[in-house]
């Protein structure tokens, strides 16, 4: 009985999230457009997440390089270190780690913010003052997440590659020019484009789930906590599922 209900709840929520996404596309492209709020959200989501993304990307690049070196040394393939790190960072680690960091930072903050606005009747107040809260709060946040995440991924990837250069030089001497040439000889557009496209989807999922959970938050402080928590959990899980699908599609299209 319990299992049956959970299964039913899961299907119901999946349907509701799909309807929520449908409403985003329906309302997002109709005037009135909330440009000022969109730019404010881009600033909050993009600019204010930048330090965290940069620090994480730097550490990831450095750690990946340092830990890969011994294995490559065993095969005498140390010179492949820049190429290997670049491929890992650009294709997989950059987008996924940035998206997970953003799911934690942005997803939870959107979930908690909209959840507390719902609980304290601020969303209702906005509606009765003649402002469409879905457009003002939800459409702007989902769009800002979708537009900002690829930019954060690009910045993150760049910093990871720079950190990897430092990592390579911790035990050995490789000039910037040599490192740079090795990296860019290895990666091409078939590496960059799928990674870039999937970042848009990651951003969309983070915004969508954060907004859905917050906007439909249950009453009370527990509801707000739950909205923030489940926004992170569900969007992180969806990021991995999307990543799996993206890899399969890229593979089928021969972009490997």
């Amino acid at each position, binding site marked *: 009985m319990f299992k049956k209900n959970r299964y039913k709840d899961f299907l119901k929520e999946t349907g509701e999230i799909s309807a929520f996404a449908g409403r985003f596309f329906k309302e997002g492209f109709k005037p009135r457009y909330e440009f000022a709020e969109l730019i404010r959200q881009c600033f909050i989501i993009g600019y204010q997440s930048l330090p965290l993304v940069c620090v994480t990307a730097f550490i990831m690049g450095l750690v990946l390089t340092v830990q890969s070196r011994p294995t490559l040394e065993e095969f005498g393939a140390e010179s492949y270190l820049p190429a290997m790190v670049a491929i890992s960072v650009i294709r997989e680690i950059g987008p996924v780690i940035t998206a997970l960091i953003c799911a934690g930072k942005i997803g939870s903050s959107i979930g908690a913010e909209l959840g507390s606005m719902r609980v304290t009747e601020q969303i209702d107040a*906005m509606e009765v003052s*003649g*402002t469409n809260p879905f457009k003002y709060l939800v459409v702007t946040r989902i769009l800002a997440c979708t537009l900002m995440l690829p930019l954060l991924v690009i910045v993150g990837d760049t910093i990871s590659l720079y950190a990897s250069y430092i990592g390579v030089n911790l035990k050995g001497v490789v000039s910037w020019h040599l490192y740079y040439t090795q990296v860019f000889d290895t990666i091409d557009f078939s590496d960059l484009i799928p990674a870039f496209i999937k970042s848009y989807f990651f951003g969309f999922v983070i915004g969508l789930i954060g907004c859905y959970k917050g906007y439909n938050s249950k009453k009370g402080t527990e509801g707000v906590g739950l909205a923030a928590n489940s926004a992170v959990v569900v969007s992180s899980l969806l990021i991995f599922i999307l990543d799996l699908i993206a890899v399969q599609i890229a593979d089928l299209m021969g972009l490997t």
Partner: protein
Amino acid sequence: MEKNPKHQSTEGIINDDKVIIVNKLYKSFGDNDVLKGFNLDLKKGENLVVLGKSGSGKSVLIKCMVGLLYPDDGEVAVLGKNIPKLDQDELDHLRVRIGFLFQSSALYDSMTVRENLEFPLRRHWISKSKEEVNELVMEALKNVGLEDAVDKMPSELSGGMRKRIGLARTLILKPEIMLYDEPTTGLDPITSREISKLIVEIQHTYQTSSIIITHDMACAKIVANRMIILVDGICYAIGTYNDLEQSKDPKIRPFFE
């Protein structure tokens, strides 16, 4: 010297035009039938108090009047327009003419008091120049006696101050109808009295027609021109405060004891 609002005459303010007509309103949530054929009419310029126990459907009633909830059946005509039949644009236009004070004040807590008050003005392009907006903000704050709070954040305000700011934000659009959802809940008796007096002052200053949802009898006594008692989802009794106070009906008496 402060005028006692109780002694301000309502002569010439109230007339027989009906601004809100609720006819046979039904609303249920699952198996819980909240409103079962509720009727109400609000005359232009009057303060109508809807009295009822917690959970009796008072808030549901006024939420149906602004389209936050949709009735299962029945008519809710506000300023001559049937709310359930309006499309989103028509509803948004009508909502500008209706003020709604929420139980929790519902101030936008990421904005200062000034930004809270400017929000409805900016959204409706009512006033474009900065000076004009500032003037309207200060006027609304003056009318609720809180000009000093203009640059504060909602979190720095007390419960009573939040109610007043919520009221100022609603009044800035000069609504024709005001709906108050439990305006004195959670406030101490002195602040409750101040808010009640303010509701009467607003009736005179802005010539609003108001519905006040409450279970606070002290508030009802100060603000009501007419009262409705909501019991079991219907309009059980209607009359002035004094009329209802004299009633011996076992369902009405508990409110006055």
